[in-house]
């Protein structure tokens, strides 16, 4: 049982990180980015190519995170322009369709040009025992990176003026404008941040399992499930929902079988929509 819970937490932190980038963009701008998984895959492929070209791992990762951020910036500057001119439901729908298109194009391009490229980051060294359970080093490093990332996000959103300004737009866009905050600039910043977070997803995932050109869709799907359960626009909710779902997933896979765990996750999302439409930590509008 302890092993299941520890594995569940490792997976759950992954889930939480997955959802963070997606949920921020949705909460802030009402934009549902279905190319989110492709952001992660692009970052992974860039890192892999950079390492193939002989770059050491840290600079390669930096280049990959930059590529993720650029992906977000590019979306903001081009395809999302018409999306920003719409409101509410039309905005969500248009963003969903356009980014779905982007995801197909990116997938197609990557499968065509780099069909065999995949990112695996091996952390050397044997297992480390935690509470009597041997844990893979890769899992622990990935979890540590995730926790540090969330701590960074917490400090950014709670302690810095820019982070507060971003939150203010989520809370009351008109209030933010009256204070002198440009909602569109905040959204651009968050799209870049979301791309960098997607890059971190790729990096931490690659420490546990290879990230290849086909990983995009599953990353987006898991991110969506966790986002729904955690509450849209809520980073702390994403982390909490991620950990809960991670533990549920591992235990379900252990008791019933891994083929059923995705169904259970989708079920959890469906139940959340029924019982708490705003998510675990969500607040009613």
């Amino acid at each position: 049982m302890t092993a299941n819970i520890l594995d569940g937490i490792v997976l759950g932190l992954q889930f939480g990180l997955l959802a963070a980038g997606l949920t921020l963009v949705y909460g802030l701008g009402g934009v549902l980015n279905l190319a989110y998984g492709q952001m992660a895959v692009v970052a992974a492929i860039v890192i892999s190519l950079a390492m193939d070209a002989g770059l050491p791992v840290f600079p390669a990762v930096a280049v990959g995170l930059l590529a993720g951020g650029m992906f977000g910036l590019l979306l903001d500057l081009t395809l999302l322009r018409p999306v920003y001119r719409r409101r509410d439901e039309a905005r969500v729908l248009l963003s969903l369709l356009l980014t779905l298109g982007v995801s197909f194009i990116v997938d197609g391009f990557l499968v065509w040009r780099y069909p065999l490229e995949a990112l695996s980051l091996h952390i050397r060294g044997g297992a480390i025992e935690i509470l009597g359970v041997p844990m893979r080093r890769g899992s622990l490093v990935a979890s540590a990176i995730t926790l540090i990332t969330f701590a960074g996000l917490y400090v950014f959103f709670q302690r810095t003026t820019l982070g507060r300004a971003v939150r203010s737009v989520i809370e009351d866009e008109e209030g933010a404008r009256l204070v002198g905050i440009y909602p569109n600039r905040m959204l651009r910043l968050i799209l870049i941040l979301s791309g960098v977070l997607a890059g971190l997803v790729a990096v931490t995932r690659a420490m546990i399992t290879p990230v290849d050109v086909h990983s995009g869709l599953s990353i987006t799907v898991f991110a969506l499930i966790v986002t729904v359960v955690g509450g849209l626009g809520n980073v702390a909710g994403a982390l909490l929902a991620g950990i809960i779902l991670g533990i549920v997933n591992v235990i379900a896979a252990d008791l019933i079988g891994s083929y059923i765990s995705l169904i259970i996750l989708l079920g959890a999302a469906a139940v959340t929509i029924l019982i708490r439409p705003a998510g675990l930590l969500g607040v009613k509008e």
Partner: protein
Amino acid sequence: MLEVKGFSAGYQGNDVIHDLAFHVDPGEAVMIIGSNGAGKTTLFRAMCGLLSPSSGTVLFEGDDITGLPAEYIARLGMKFVSAERHLFPRMTVQENLLLGAYPGKPDPETISGVMDLFPRLAERRRQHAGTMSGGEQQMLAVGRALMSRPRLLVLDEPSTGLAPLLAQEAYQALGVLRERGLTVLVAEQQVPLAMAFSDRGYVLENGFIRLQGTTEELAANPGVRSAYLGVT
């Protein structure tokens, strides 16, 4: 300080306010009075960049700001406090105030000035804005607007949702600000409150300015007396 000319605006092509003209000089307190639905809120929203006007111009300190976005106008030093307040409900009083200074750095002197003016805000510093009473939220909305040391404060119905005593308190605080030299433009349907505070005023009815004058002139006008002051 502020000059509005030939100003019309509305929703979905139907103008609610028509060809309005008025001005506010530096150091003045000017009221726009009128009943519910007269167009006061539409006027302020269009003036402050939350709604596109259909015609007319708005000059702020000589610059044409007509149709500029609200966030730009706010940074120029004309701060709008909406009747709905638009606070950040899940942020503390302190955070709301800090954001009021955005993008500048909050100046400790300004914060303590706001806290002196509204001691309740100091008591509730760490409380979430959304959990406060209507009166406290109104104080916070004004306090947040003051954080950037605006040159013109535009207030839409500061008495909305407040008990009579609290509404009076709100106007007392505005009176203090005025004495310190702040220029204020206020829309109000509780006319006696606004009259006790303003130098001059305009009467807005069905989207048109029907009357204008000093507060004394308006208070002496028989039409104003019967319609807004309950005197027959």
